[in-house]
């Protein structure tokens, strides 16, 4: 294994190369662009044995990789913000069609008004498309999550989106370790799906389906994506055994010992949250950080298991769930905890939109406000 210093986008591209994908299709958008550029260069220079399809829009990106995946190719794409929104129709198609796909989404605010910097509104807006959504918080985790995503999507036939924060992660240099190719090859053998869109296999894909036969398709996706949590964890363990890399299961918990106040967030702000937890601990608050790694499927059972009776949960949302008065994580967490017999107090705030800076001191102040609300 080799340790290097590079950006999140570079780590992402290196992981895609290591995953030996067959085809890349992408359309440029800040801050994703350098992922697509690096992959185009790897392919052009023969460092990567794959095809690059320079499509003319993100709707076309998703249409192209979906068709390619139906033929049994391992594909990759990356996007951000408006690009992800533009794919919406085909995101549903890909998940409904149980296609094995991996996409990086470099999180960025959405318009109006225009803004180039991070929040999670793009990914949260695609919550109900049936995609698995992972959130990384370091360059190493981006690299490892992309590899893990292929393993998961090819095992469960549900597409996986690997999210990481625009600029804060995509463009910041951090040291990370590149895994030896033989180890990755052992973890991730070539994709060989049971069925391919091909005359040797026959059959048609996505036909018009009558009402009595339609629900089983949709319901099995709904059931299987819930099971994806276990599959993600199982494969993350296997990857850890091979590489020593571990970023947590469905949650990454910081200072859980004796904790009563839990600060829930995802993405890079969750890394800053560790400093906030340290400050609160110093002040005598029994705080812990809860970094959500898997937004979809939402790990409801895991959350219930982690929180002791009487716990207080403070939710830091970098998105709005419009119409609920708060963010998506708060709605999700409340729904997850509704069936608990003992009392768990939950509150949350929306912050950090459009790249608004979230230093630890600010997070501590917000945590205090939220604890005040729960008194």
């Amino acid at each position, binding site marked *: 294994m080799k340790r290097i210093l590079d950006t999140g986008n570079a780590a992402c591209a290196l992981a895609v190369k290591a995953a030996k994908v067959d085809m890349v299709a992408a359309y440029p958008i800040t801050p994703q662009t350098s992922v697509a550029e690096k992959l185009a260069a790897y392919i052009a220079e023969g460092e990567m044995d794959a*095809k690059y399809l320079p499509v003319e829009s993100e*709707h076309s990106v998703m249409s192209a990789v979906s068709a390619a995946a139906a033929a049994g190719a391992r594909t990759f794409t990356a996007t951000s913000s408006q690009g992800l929104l533009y794919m919406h129709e085909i995101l549903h198609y890909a998940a409904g069609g149980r296609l094995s796909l991996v996409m990086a989404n470099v999180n960025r605010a959405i318009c109006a008004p225009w803004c180039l910097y991070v929040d999670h509104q793009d990914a949260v807006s695609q919550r109900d498309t049936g995609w698995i959504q992972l959130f990384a918080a370091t360059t190493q985790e981006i690299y490892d999550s992309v590899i893990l995503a292929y393993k998961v999507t090819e095992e469960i036939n549900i597409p996986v989106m690997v999210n990481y924060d625009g600029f804060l992660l995509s463009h910041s240099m951090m040291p990370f370790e590149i895994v030896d190719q033989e180890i990755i090859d052992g973890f991730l053998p070539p994709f060989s799906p049971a069925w391919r869109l091909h005359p040797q296999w026959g059959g048609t894909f*996505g036909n018009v389906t009558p009402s009595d036969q339609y629900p089983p398709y949709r319901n099995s996706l709904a059931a299987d994506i819930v099971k994806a949590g276990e599959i993600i964890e199982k494969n993350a363990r296997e990857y850890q055994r091979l590489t020593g890399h571990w970023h947590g299961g469905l949650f990454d918990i910081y200072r859980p010992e004796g904790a009563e106040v839990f600060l829930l967030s995802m993405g890079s702000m969750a890394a800053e949250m560790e400093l906030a937890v340290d400050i609160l601990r110093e002040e005598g608050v029994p705080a812990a950080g809860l970094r959500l790694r898997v937004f979809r499927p939402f790990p409801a059972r895991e959350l219930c298991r982690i929180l002791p009776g009487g716990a207080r949960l403070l939710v830091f949302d970098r998105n709005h769930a419009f119409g609920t008065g708060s963010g998506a994580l708060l709605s999700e967490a409340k729904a997850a905890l509704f069936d608990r017999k003992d009392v768990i107090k939950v509150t949350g705030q929306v912050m950090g939109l459009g790249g608004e800076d979230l230093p630890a001191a600010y997070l501590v102040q917000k945590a205090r406000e939220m604890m005040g609300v729960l008194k």
Partner: protein
Amino acid sequence: MSVKIKDMPDIDYVLPGSAACAGCPSAIALRIVGKALGENAIMVMTPSCAVASIGLLPKSCYSIPVLNICFASAGASGGGLTLALDALYEKGRLQGEKPTVFTWIGDGGTYDIGLQGISAAAERNDDFIHFCYNNEAYSNTGVQRSGATPLHAVTTTTPLGKEVARKNVPLLMLEHRIPYMATASLAYPLDLYRKVEKAKSVKGFKYIEILSPCSPGWKFAASDTVELSKRAVKSGSWLLWEAEYGKLTLNNPTRLLAEGKTQPIPVEEYLKDQGRYARLLKHPQKEEYLAAIEAEIRRELTFMADRAKL
């Protein structure tokens, strides 16, 4: 070179029991196309009558693999599929001969919602054949106007007749200078068959557009699909031609019309049995309108004759 009906293989992509309307031009065309392409083919479709014709799952009236993708997706899905196959064959993960990839798309999916993606596939020179069966409307959703609906035609969204002319997508494709493209007609099946065979033999992006008179959409008797196809060509309303890398060749009978060696039949002969023109044909200014249509036909024939000299 010249094909005879009896030379065409027995293979038929359209199985008995198709849910298509009687006289459906898409089904007729696909039968001919299937014979030219053979079994080693994959079809990509977008929402349209051709998809509705498949029948309900688990049945399918098409005997080859079909990807039923979304409406604007033809160009990108055709391109993604063919490039993925290239990768898989080159890496040896698929063995044998690469299947022919083709898209089978209506005028809505070609002229309107899908135009951007198809233009991009043409520009990239993706290796597949894009077929547009042009029935000059969104037939599947109940015959609304499309960018291919001609002037004066009544559709459910142009109840007084369309006030603007259709756009000329074949000409747009011609200037994409793709390796091969052609227009075709159901009344000239041997010409269509030959063009499909030619397209199959060429690598890169191919475009074939087939005028597809739609009985319920255009309001004519279901037995007359081929007859109307013929009158469209003979009146100069639909031109038959092909082109390699932008080098245009007119095909007969269009060439004879363009060279002035034969005269087009009066356009009224083509329009009169189509209910969608009933308003036009009863209009007080009918003669004026018909004269304008014929002048437009002459302009286009002259334009194409001159363009063929380039």
